[in-house]
């Protein structure tokens, strides 16, 4: 019972905290996209700005980590409510979704950084 309570409270706090980070990240991300496309930047021009840029690299790592924390907790709730999953299945789903998002996100960042 205590373990379930601790887990519930931690998941809630993590999702709230990551939501706050995501709110800022999404805003910066969208503004950047709009500015880049309106300025008519080519793929090469964008890559020349991101490759080797520690700033953009750091920003998107934070973005991806926040996403990988936030989204799986939501998926977990959906699986519990709509599919009736409980216990181990939920933990597995959360872990897999976290790993998949981390792997995909970090790979994409590495692709435009290196």
């Amino acid at each position, binding site marked *: 019972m*205590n373990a*379930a*309570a*601790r887990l519930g*409270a*931690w998941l809630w*706090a993590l999702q709230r905290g990551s939501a706050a980070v995501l709110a800022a990240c999404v805003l910066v991300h969208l503004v950047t996209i709009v500015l880049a496309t309106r300025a008519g930047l080519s793929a090469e021009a964008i890559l020349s700005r991101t490759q080797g840029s520690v700033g953009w690299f750091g920003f998107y790592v934070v973005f991806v980590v926040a996403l990988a924390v936030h989204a799986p907790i939501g998926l977990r709730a959906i699986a519990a*409510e709509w599919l*009736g999953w409980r216990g181990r299945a939920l933990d597995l789903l959360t872990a897999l979704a976290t790993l998949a998002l981390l792997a995909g996100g970090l790979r994409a960042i590495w692709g435009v950084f290196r």
Partner: protein
Amino acid sequence: MADVDDELEVRVWRGGEDGAFQAFRVPRRESQTVLDIVTHIQRHLDPTLAYRFACRVGMCGSCAMTVNGVARWTCRTHVNKVARKGALELRPLANLPVIRDLVTDMREFFDKWARAGGQFRGASTRHDEFARVEPASVQRQQVDAGIECIGCGVCYSSCDVVAWRPDYLGPAALQRAFTLMADERDTAGRERLQAVAGDAGCHSCHTHMSCTERCPKHLSPTAAIAKLKTAAARAALRGEL
């Protein structure tokens, strides 16, 4: 106001879970409540109709039903306000097993109050002085905000999360738990927090606010649940959960 000799078309749920609607025509009266309608049907049209009521004045919380799709206390719901084109549809409360007609089995609803730690536990005895609780204190105000719950089940019946995961403790039980968490005389805070922060507890709430919208006493279980979430997170971060 409709003429008193008008009639109302009332479709009433009959039987158990797999029952069906039965139609009645009920004469309209001035200031008529939905409970008056049900009582008229039982006394004059079909004495086998099962429904619950006790106080008739909005205190006991026993007469709640689904009226035209919305959970309401029927003793204080005027027909004028809810009838659509001179028609009413009455069903038992949703999210609870139907015993018969308009009567639901509320055991699970109240068992969840117990599961959420809804019992007061103090440290003092009858030999001690009365606790002096400052009426204007924040904690006392928080208790006041939720203490008038009459246990009618309207919030529980209106809650989407209860419909989706039946083990969810529900708005009424969680609000009750919060009034005790805010009660400075209570000593079972930690256990209660463990009880409400579990798998189907306060964190399952999606803040849809249907409970707050529908509560006939205008309470806000949503606010109480939000405070429980925060309290649980604080306790977890401090390693006290």
